[in-house]
């Protein structure tokens, strides 16, 4: 299923948890691991002067410098590399981070892209105030491949999947998320936990939903899941259906925690925001920064 994994990394603490996951998966699935690092953006057109994103120094890019950076990457991931049984490649690039990642994905398509969290806390205010990391947002929106993002320690992650949560809002994107989960289940034999959160967070002040109302909605949602998705399951029996009420982002995280899930799969809803930043659905954003396990983002182009 995963024969080629692209791990796009800033080689800083922000990607450490993601690194562990990427390497673990590469081992578990006997995949080739492509490690990709963007050094920085040239200050001028054809200029080779770049502010190295990691060292914050103004450097000049040439073959020698690139080799040095690769060596640094090797040292940084030494322990993980030692334990890696399969093949790996290492590549560095210069340009806008998300753009170079997307370019790499286009030129050398992987089965999966693995990324870490926002580098905002590590770097200075040169980066925008974005919760999940603008690079991830832009890559997840445009990449024609699933993007796995890990922002917090995925302590119990062993590389494989035994139980996955699929969050659905009954959109077309969610349909694809379920389809992908089925594919994963057929390959790995994992259990699928279909989940929907009935959103009660948007209630105007003073309004009150009775518990009966809420439970009606839960019932309707459960029925909807069964009729919309279960028929596709075929001979897969290893699944559950759950619907909770609450704030969707938090409910998914809690649900995954209770289920001790290895993975949460969600559809990415692209929406352009004011300043040109590509804001994903806020639910997904909440899940990504709070989940205790990796989160897989799928956008509509993944299935093209």
């Amino acid at each position, binding site marked *: 299923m995963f024969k080629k994994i692209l791990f796009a990394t800033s080689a800083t603490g922000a990607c450490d948890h993601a690194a562990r996951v990427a390497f673990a998966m590469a081992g578990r699935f006997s995949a080739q691991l492509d490690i990709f690092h963007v050094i920085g953006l040239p200050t*001028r057109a*054809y*200029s080779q002067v770049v502010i190295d994103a990691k060292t914050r120094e103004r450097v000049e890019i040439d073959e020698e410098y690139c080799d040095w950076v690769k060596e640094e990457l090797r040292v940084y991931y030494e322990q993980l590399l030692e334990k890696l049984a399969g093949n790996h490649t290492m590549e560095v690039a210069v340009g*806008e981070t998300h*753009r170079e990642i997307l370019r790499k994905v286009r030129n050398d398509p992987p089965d999966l892209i693995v990324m870490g969290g926002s580098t905002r806390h590590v770097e200075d*205010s040169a980066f925008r105030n974005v919760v999940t990391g603008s690079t991830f947002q832009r890559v997840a929106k445009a990449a024609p491949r699933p993007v796995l993002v890990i922002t917090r320690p995925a302590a119990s992650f062993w590389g494989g999947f035994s139980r996955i949560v699929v969050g659905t809002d009954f959109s077309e994107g969610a349909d694809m998320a379920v389809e992908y989960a089925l594919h994963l289940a057929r390959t790995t034999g994992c259990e699928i936990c279909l989940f929907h959160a009935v959103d009660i967070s948007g209630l105007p002040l003073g309004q009150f939903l009775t518990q009966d109302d809420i439970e009606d909605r839960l019932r309707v949602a459960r029925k909807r899941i069964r009729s919309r998705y279960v028929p596709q399951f075929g001979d897969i029996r290893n699944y559950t259906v759950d619907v909770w009420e609450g704030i969707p982002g938090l409910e998914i995280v809690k649900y995954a925690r209770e289920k001790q899930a290895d993975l949460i799969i969600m559809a990415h809803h*692209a929406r352009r925001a*004011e300043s040109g930043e590509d804001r994903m659905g806020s639910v997904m954003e909440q899940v990504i920064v709070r989940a205790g396990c990796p989160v897989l983002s799928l*956008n509509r*182009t993944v299935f093209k």
Partner: protein
Amino acid sequence: MPEGTLCNKRPIETDEQLKTLLADKSGKIYYEEMKHLDVDTAKLWDTIRKTMKSRLKTWLSICAHCGMCADSCFLYLINDRDPKQVPAYKIQSTLGEIVRKKGRVDNDFMHMAMETAWARCTCCNRCAMYCPHGIDVGVMMGYLRGLLYQQGFVPWEMKIGAGMHRVYRAQMDVLPEEFVDTFQWMIEESEEEYPGLTVPVDKEGADIMYTVNAREVKHYPEDLAEAAILFHIAGEDWTIPSSGWELTSLAMFAGDWEACRLQVESVYSAMERLKPKRMIGTECGHAHRATVIEGPYWAGRKDGKPPVPSIHYVEWVAEALRTGKLKIDPEKRLKRKVTLQDSCNYIRNHGLREITREIMSYIVEPGYFVDMAPNKEHNYCCGGGGGFNGIGIFRPQRNKALITKRDQILNTGAELVVAPCHNCWDAIRDLEEEYEIGISWSFLKPLLVSMVVVPEHMKPEE
């Protein structure tokens, strides 16, 4: 003394020479060799006799030394009113001196002239507006740059830039297929969101032929996607040429007139091949000047016009908003303090000051737009024009020059600067990086894409 291997009077003509020069990090060896470069005084004087015509001669001789140009020049003001920064002084001490000495100047002089031409003037033409005689030092500096380039006294990055145009017909090493490929990639990324989005390539007889800045292809391809999206929403019949797509001209900044000619000829050739009704360029100031205004003269076109009517991107945007081809959702208008950068090349030098303000009136919620002071054709250079942004050895001078724009922005109290010009955008980005005043800056395209009303039939099916 023989010419250097890297620093000499010959232009860069091959990719190999380009790579060799690029490999000399920051031009270390290049500048070292320049210290020993001879001045071909005979050629210098001969060129002047052949190319310096009555206008420049008149300007040099009728300067009344009145000093009115002094306060007009932002570099004079920011450098503590150093008399040597007075525009009249700057040109008289360089070009004026060369003419007075009939070309008999030495290496030291040429170094000083190089610094004056590229670090003490951005060719913003502001002084021309205040001189009682209308003497344009910026224009004369352009001429001086040509002489210096011919003699080999040109900043490293400018030599490379001119070389890029000579070898690639673009300011960066974009391979022939790369442009179309990148554009199509951008379409692929956006077609989910905008069904039916395409980019017609080499279509003949289209209404619009669109040209870009090579940097968009290399580093900011989102700009290409945004351009396509806006043309798509506006229902335009447009196309891109597979060659002759580069609007910019670093060769103009470098003073390499032959490369300038070669560059614009590639665009004119595309115009002649595809016969669009008009050509629209991306958001870039000097590019418009190079290809639309000066270009026809470089290419020897007697009527001083490109083969097809050509307009600046802001003119198209204003037209689209005016005619309703693009409609702005009032809810999404900018509701924070916004100011506007007036790019010298198409505002002061091409009269589009009201056009950009017209656009602001559509996209900014009333009450939130604050003009800089001074503004319109009186606005100051961004600090990075004329190639200043790109020259490493003059970076300190450039960073100082940014202070003028920085203070102008701070005085407006704006959070966002709209800068429909690549150079201005870069300069403002650099000023934020250097001085951290906490502003955002943007081209027009991303703003428009975020607030334009998408017709129902163009929305993706849910």
